[in-house]
């Protein structure tokens, strides 16, 4: 497949990479990534320059077409709108089926993956956390402003959300009556006329450090954001910011156990410490810059957790159809169950959602 792709790209080089000298040949460095994502990535190299020429994303499943085309459409939209954001996202060079698999060829963004540090006490280092949070928040604000003209009203959207999404969650997970009522209350809260209607927001869908590149140009620091597979034009506000703030600590913790994951989550949102106060401040500033009522933060956070729980379930379920569950999913479920079907339900995000519902009064935001 890649040989066929190379032939095509080289044949069409002048059109695809105007102004760039055509290389003699292309070699590919494979970076499979996580199996839950459903794609595998190759960086294309030639001998003419030190950095990759382009990146190739291949959807492993024959049903990857929707995701490939969705990503293409969102990226094309961002490029079309121009402005500061367009240079921070990949350019779609090609998106097509080759040998019965959907393949997306995208440009390379400058920068290195956003790194983060821990203190000896097991909390994120505040200096790097503050810098990273500000960069992430700043980018998300620009992203929202750039896409503002695409926002839709929420009247039928919320009704459909309640019917489809909430019902899916209730079907998949065995929610208690209390959890069930709480979630319905949160959905009703975001649709409350008190807020004059909820403006929907564009969503990256996987806004975490491993998809964010940081580059330095003198004193100026810029972000680039990759992997738009799960993006959508309209979703709940604050989704991406919460994805970033929730996973930031999870990824850099030093202890190893499912309990440590829960502790990191609780330290981020239920314990008053410099890190949680930083998150509080960032969320507050973000809401202020985008005109979102800060009292919506709590219900929006609950819905973010519920969307992640659903997303995680469907990703794992897709994995299980063709092979093993990821190691992490097996690791999390081991103490709870010996059934793979139950393992799909004993994962990280439903655990966070349930923890939140139990401790919602202590939520620092």
């Amino acid at each position, binding site marked *: 497949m890649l040989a066929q792709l190379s032939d095509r790209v080289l044949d069409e080089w002048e059109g695809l990479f105007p102004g760039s000298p055509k290389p003699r040949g292309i070699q590919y460095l494979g*970076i499979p990534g996580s199996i839950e994502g459903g794609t595998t990535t190759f960086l294309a190299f030639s001998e003419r320059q030190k950095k990759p020429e382009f990146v190739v994303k*291949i959807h492993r499943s024959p049903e990857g077409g929707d995701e490939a085309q969705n990503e293409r459409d969102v990226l094309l939209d961002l490029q079309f709108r121009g402005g500061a954001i367009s240079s921070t996202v990949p350019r779609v060079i090609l998106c097509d089926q080759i040998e019965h*698999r959907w393949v997306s060829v995208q440009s390379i963004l400058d920068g290195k993956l956003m*790194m983060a540090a821990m203190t000896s006490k097991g909390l994120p280092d505040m200096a790097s956390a503050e810098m990273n949070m500000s960069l992430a928040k700043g980018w998300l604000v620009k992203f929202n402003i750039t896409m503002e003209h695409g926002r839709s009203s929420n009247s039928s959207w919320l009704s459909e959300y309640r019917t489809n999404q909430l019902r899916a969650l209730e079907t998949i997970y065995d929610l208690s009556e209390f959890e069930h009522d709480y979630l319905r209350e949160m959905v009703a809260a975001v649709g409350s006329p008190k807020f004059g209607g909820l403006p929907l927001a564009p969503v990256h869908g996987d806004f975490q450090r*491993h998809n964010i590149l940081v580059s330095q140009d003198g004193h100026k620091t810029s972000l680039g954001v990759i992997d738009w597979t799960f993006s959508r034009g309209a979703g709940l506000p604050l989704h991406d910011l919460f994805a970033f703030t929730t996973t930031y600590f999870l990824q850099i913790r030093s202890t190893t156990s499912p309990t440590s994951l829960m502790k990191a989550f609780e330290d981020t949102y239920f314990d008053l410490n410099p890190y949680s106060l930083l998150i509080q401040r960032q969320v507050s500033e973000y809401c202020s810059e985008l005109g979102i009522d800060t009292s919506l933060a709590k219900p929006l956070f609950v819905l973010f957790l519920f969307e992640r729980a659903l997303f995680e379930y469907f990703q794992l379920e897709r994995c299980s159809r063709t092979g093993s569950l990821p190691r*992490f999913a097996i690791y999390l479920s081991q103490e709870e169950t010996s059934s793979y079907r139950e393992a799909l339900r004993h994962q990280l995000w439903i655990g966070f959602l349930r923890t939140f519902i139990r401790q919602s009064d202590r939520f620092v935001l």
Partner: protein
Amino acid sequence: MAVCPACLNPTGRRAWTFLCDGCLAGWSIKDEIPTLNDGLVTRSMSGPLEHGELGQLVASAESNGWQQALYEYNSVKVARGAAPEEDQRLADWQYLVPLDRNTVVLVVGSGLGTVPLSFSERVAAVYVVDPVWERVRFLRIRAVQQGIQNVFPFYTGGRFNLPFGAGSFHLVVLKSSVPWGAVDDTPRNQRETSQIILQQVHSLLRPGGKLSLVVGNGLSFLRLLSLIIRPAMWIPRSIEALKSALGLGQKVHLGSLIGESSLLGYRKLLRAGGFTDLDVYAPLPSHTGVPLFSLPLNSGTARKHFFSHIFPLFEMVSPEVKRQYGLQYPIARLGVKLALRFRLTAMVKYFVPGYSIIATKKPGVGSVQEC
């Protein structure tokens, strides 16, 4: 498709046996799987432990479904601190070779079925041979339960004697770590075994066909490090390896299809075996298990980019994954730092843990030169 391994005449199915139309030799079919070792299914050659776990895998797959069986099997591994031995990423190298709906593939060593079943979606047919009964059986169960009809497993027992005619395949996939018994009754040293295996594979391929070979590196940095730390452990093996290289080695039935060698050794072996256009990759962190990266060793720019920009990403993995790699990662990190510092990245290819080599059968080459 199948031919008699003894006389290469076509075989035909008669109820529960395959019969050769030429010499009338027959092989039984057990659980819909042709068995090639005199019709007898013997115990797993991998030893009692694996036989136990694999036996449970098969039993659970039959009664509870392959997904539940795989979950139970992998749960045991994860509980021990290891990772599942296979997932979809293991087959991602398939995008480096041309495949289409006419391609016919031979996979030597079925594993847990990930590679053959992944290929089955994109090609005409996948033939699979394995010396371990439980693995072949599990593959068959998976194929049936997943509704896959173009995967054809064969149980070979301990003998690498394949029932396929010359030029049957567009692609042969061979992982050298698959334990096998022998090619025939003659005791041979590892070098001879490797040559004969490649000779067989060469004949099975169509002209221009591809061989995908995954092998360990005899000069891997971990091997060299353990040589320094525990030299006594490696002296006997080193002597045997040297004897084998000189054709003086004890002639025994050995476990690996292709003996471990260096990069230069593999290049020489493959070229002598009638293969050309070698694309060499380093599956990292190791050629065993699921690779997180596949580094093209023929590309200097890819190598340098990998060491400068991608290798450091390992810092981002979870603590559980870091723990899984123990000392390997800090040692590799030190090696990468030194290589970058002293501009020795070109040398790294000689010391990686293993290789994934995609080689092309020379068109118009019928016979194999002696090594």
